[in-house]
């Protein structure tokens, strides 16, 4: 199984914990790490479960809840906020029919708010998975969501 293969790539050193978490999450179809994942990592690294859990829950990029196929991360740090990210958020919520932190029932999208993505030159901005979208307008946003819904990406 996948988890075993990923663990095999690593030396059993505690400083590999974060990278293993990254890898296991990337391999999950629902973009998260499960309790069993964390238990097995703890055994593999010889760490208490609490240490693995503590680390996994600390970082906002690692999720313990199943997430949609696409994770939308809208930036609401001061530069994007100033350039109108709040009204973009309103439209996102309306288009997707979910609130921040929730996943659409069809498991296609999860909506998250993120801290600064470092692309403030094109604020307001968001990331969908690894892709960055900037200079967002209501019209542009609706088209992007439509494209993802129809699989045109």
């Amino acid at each position, binding site marked *: 199984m996948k988890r075993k293969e990923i663990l095999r790539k690593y030396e059993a*050193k*505690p*400083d*590999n*914990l*974060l*990278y293993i*978490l*990254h890898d296991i999450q990337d391999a999950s179809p629902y973009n998260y790490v499960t309790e069993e994942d964390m238990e097995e990592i703890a055994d593999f690294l010889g760490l208490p479960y609490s*240490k693995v859990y*503590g*680390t996994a829950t*600390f*970082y*906002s*990029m*690692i999720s313990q809840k199943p997430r949609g196929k696409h994770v939308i991360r809208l930036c*609401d*740090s*001061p*530069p994007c*906020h*100033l*350039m109108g990210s709040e009204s973009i958020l309103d439209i996102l919520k309306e288009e997707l029919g979910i609130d921040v932190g929730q996943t659409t029932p069809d498991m296609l999208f999860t909506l998250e708010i*993120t*801290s*600064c*993505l*470092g*692309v*403030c*030159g*094109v*604020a307001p*901005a968001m*990331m969908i998975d*690894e892709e*960055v*979208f*900037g*200079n967002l307008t209501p019209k542009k946003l609706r088209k992007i969501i439509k494209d993802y819904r129809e699989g045109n990406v």
Partner: protein
Amino acid sequence: MSLITKYVLISIDEDTLIAGARKVESELNRILAEQGLSGEIMVVETGTMGIMGKGVVMLIQPDDVTYVNVTPEDVREIVSEHLLKGRPVKRLQFTGKVDQSVISFRETAQELKKQNRVVLANSGLIDPESIDEYIAVNGYEALGKALTAHKPEEIIDMVKTSGLRGRGGAGFPTGLKWSFTAPLKNTPKYIVCNADEGEPGTFKDRLIMEGDPHKLIEGMAIAAYAIGAEKGFIYIRGEYSLSISRTQKAIEDARAYGLLGKNIFGTSFSFDLEIKKGAGAYVCGEETALINSLEGGRGNPRVKPPFPGVKGLWQQPTVVNNVETLSNIPSIILNGPDWFKSIGTEKSTGTKVYTILGHVNNPGLIEVEMGTTLRDIIYKYAGGVKGGKFKCALVGGAAGAFLNEEMLDVRMDYDHLGEYKAVLGSGAILVMNEESCIVDMLRNILFFFKHESCGKCSPCRIGTAQLYSLADKIYSGKGSDEDLEQMLTLSEAMSTTALCALGQSPYLVIHTAVRFFQDEIEEHIRRKVCMKDICRMNGAERR
């Protein structure tokens, strides 16, 4: 063999990639091949040219013409009109004034005077994925010089004399930091590059890594030699995928050329580098939190002392420096500390890279001498304020300060800003016009701190949550004078009791907001009204 007559430099960075730079590039290559021009016109991928929010950017050399907002449909016109007939396509030309960002790093002396590029000297001009191009512009010469002609102590003295101060925010003298670690006998020692750029509005380090990653690697190797480290880590935030891949390639190329690895330049010095990827935590920009994260755990800060210079990564002596700081090192070694000291002000030497954004006509990245005024940065380099009059600028990110109109002529460096209790910080300048609301921004910033607090110490864990809820009350039209008073006293208490800079920071932003915009805040409290119609007052009176 045909002769190259023109170069098309196309900027490939996160911003232009969003705008479809790859599509434009492949269309360009396709049309050049179709017209049989591939041998005469060379397409070069570069890092950023400093122009943001203007789509795909390309520069034609030697004509010195910059095009912005280029789409694949425009490519044929550029090829047939400009590249074949020599007539620039006016409608796509960058219309910013000549003294702005990108134009000013060309070779002409007059233009160079306007922006003084040290860190970004090569960015936008060389292919960041080619080690040969970096070597062609004197790359790795400083490392060779350091290893073969200088002792480690001499390198530290040069950096001390240069007056270089940390560009991550705190401004601690770099040479002094190195001198604490260098004499320690406790090996191994480590050099760590802090590339966990999380301060809102800051992306200079990303553009340095995307535009000229070898400069950082060279700077780190020199630093390692000076302090006696054989191993280095670059901790890059997880969201910066292009920085990670470019820097990774640069490390591999440097290894292949023997510029990293065993016995560099035939000396006894060996050094190697590894990239570590962050996972989205602002607090990891704090050096001890970063070290904890490197060790694989939660990114909680440690109690200092002991400082990382003595007990850092795996309890070994560790120097942590910012990307921009390290990228200054090769030029200092190559041109000498006196040259470096001749730039900037007496106590803040060299240049500073700023990201300027928000309500300005030309958001982007600039590198200017320390001591340049905020007015010059906004009006000369960023094309002035957009959509209304200047209200204020948030300088230094969330951990920074609001500066209003009366502060426009303050010289931007560590000490002059320090006189006004403000900070240079990370170099982010967020310009706000009159249409923006200070309460809305303050609430947004305090939410950020609440969200990013790591929870280790109570002043910050409880304080940041309390500050946000107070600001939210004012934002919602439910605040009182006492709430504002409490924000001031609480943040002041946090500034002296919190374990790290995160909990200490809200003080500055709250106090400068109140100092310059007390009336506006009190309007929200006493009249329950947001004159800018931004704050959501839950049915209370609106303008």
